[in-house]
């Protein structure tokens, strides 16, 4: 779509767009740029230039340890949510059974349930029953909130999936199990990858459940940042956030380069 910039309506639209983007992106810019300032507090625009705060953030072992905890928990949560989500999406799209709609609603409900309620409930549940130990408590909690993301992406993909492909595989001698892994899964893979990435990100920057359920000695990165901010807003906290933004940017860039490369190959 092209917009006629010269028309009054086009100019208004352009202005609205620019304002929205500025509103969304400026805070990120502040977080990335402010830690370069030499002052001992966050100032924008930064006064004087130094790499001190970024250096402090990188050399602070608490942040590195927390990053590893977060990566581990996010990876485990995303993979488990992916497996459960796909199995649920497959059953919900393939079979018509009593309570199918109710079950779908239950699977998606963590999206609307306040996380705090879930956190309190799960904390009580785990302490009463003594179920699961260490980081598995947080992983279990994150799986619950990650499943809806996998499901939301894979349900429409599986609904659109041409069932005759599965039948063709069966006709050629593949058991239902083999047909699923050899045909259904590869064909719907892009949707599943997208859902898993969403789940990973959801778990990675989740704070509330992590505050309640993380292992006492091994807080996740968001929890560590949150505590640091409460103690006093040092520029090194912003520097950590700045590094995260940079990492996210790199991942996005890599993803786009890869898909561009793949398109070219086809």
């Amino acid at each position, binding site marked *: 779509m092209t917009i006629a910039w010269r028309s009054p309506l086009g100019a208004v639209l352009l202005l609205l767009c620019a304002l929205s983007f500025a509103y969304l992106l400026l805070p990120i810019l502040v977080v990335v740029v402010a830690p370069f300032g030499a002052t001992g507090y966050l100032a924008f625009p930064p006064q004087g230039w130094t790499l001190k705060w970024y250096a402090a953030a990188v050399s602070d072992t608490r942040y590195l340890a927390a990053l590893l905890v977060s990566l581990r928990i996010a990876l485990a949560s995303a993979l488990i949510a992916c497996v459960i989500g796909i199995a649920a999406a497959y059953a919900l799209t393939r079979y018509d059974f009593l309570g199918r709609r109710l079950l779908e609603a239950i699977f998606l409900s963590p999206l609307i349930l306040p996380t705090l309620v879930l956190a309190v409930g799960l904390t009580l549940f785990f302490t009463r029953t003594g179920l699961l130990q260490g980081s598995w408590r947080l992983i279990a909690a994150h799986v619950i909130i990650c499943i809806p993301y996998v499901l939301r992406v894979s349900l429409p993909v599986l609904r659109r999936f*041409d069932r*005759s*492909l599965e*039948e*063709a*595989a*069966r*006709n*050629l*001698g*593949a*058991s*239902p199990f*083999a*047909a699923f892994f*050899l*045909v259904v899964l*590869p*064909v719907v893979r892009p949707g599943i990858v997208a859902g898993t990435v969403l789940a990973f990100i959801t778990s990675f920057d989740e704070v509330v459940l992590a505050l309640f359920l993380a292992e006492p000695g091994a807080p996740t990165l968001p929890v560590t940042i949150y505590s640091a901010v409460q103690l006093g807003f040092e520029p090194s906290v912003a520097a950590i956030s700045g590094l995260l933004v940079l990492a996210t940017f790199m991942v996005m860039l890599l993803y786009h380069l890869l898909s561009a490369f793949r398109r070219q190959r*086809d």
Partner: protein
Amino acid sequence: MQIELRQLRKTYGPAIAVAEISATIPQGKMLALLGPSGCGKTTTLRMVAGFIAPSSGSIHVGARDITTLPAHKRDTGLVFQSYALFPHLSAAENIAFGLRRRGVARAEREQRVTAMLDKLKLSGLAERLPRQLSGGQQQRVAVARALVINPSILLLDEPFSNLDAKLREGTGLELSRLQRELGLTSIFVTHDQSEAMSIADTIAVMKDGVLQQIGSASEIYEQPANRFVAEFIGRANFLPGRILSGDGRSHEVALDAGITVPAIASGHPGGSSRVEVLIRPEAITLTETGRSGSLTATVEAISYHGATVYVHARLADGTLVTCATTPESSRIAAQGDAIGLLPAGTRLVSFPI
């Protein structure tokens, strides 16, 4: 191998998809299931493929009862209407899929896939993904994928409906040649009567889940069991009349339009002497008006189809009759003219009203 359907039936609650169908397809022959959409032909095919469990009845391939065998153990080659090629696999990998499932060793697999690619003129396209192939090429990959496993039976679900008319005829004949060459017993589902007549040995006409008639193309065309079959296969004119004399098999019918014709009886006349006589367009000769045994009509329209010319003429009582004739014979007719229509003495069939 011979395929036998014994009183096959499929119902969904009160809805009847297939009322009851019995048919035997001898080794190496092709049966066409023909009918309008919703007639139960696809349901029947899917029961044979194992995707739908019949409500009652049984399916036999050779001496074996396969009614309850799961789809992946049935050893049937199926060509889907949508082709159902695996979009993430190349043409060669699509064709190799069934061989892999059967544990065929790599060397033999490659050799069989290559042979099949050659046979279906796909040699240069082995590494292409389905979306990089034309409709006709995709169709050939689908056929190759079904044939390469040497199935005991071949099932075709409207395999030509997505091809354009020109490609359709050539592909149909090619497929029919392959099926004969491999001696494959096969079931072919279609809603296109000319397709069914040109490639099948036997045609089963279905309507609303009920088998209407089963027989060779000529039997079904020349001696349709009922009015539905007569109208579905080819073009048909029906003229009402009254039975004058005759036994249960053939009789003289006085048409309301004014002439008397001999007709073969189809179905049981019952107590009524009223019948409708089927007169195929090509069984009518155009002649000058007033000739004995001819009907007088007014030419309404003439449509030219190359080898055949259809002359549409209206009788005095308002019935529109279609005649098929050659371009030469059609010259005596001009739009608005009165003309004589002379039904042939044989090949007329009567149906009780």
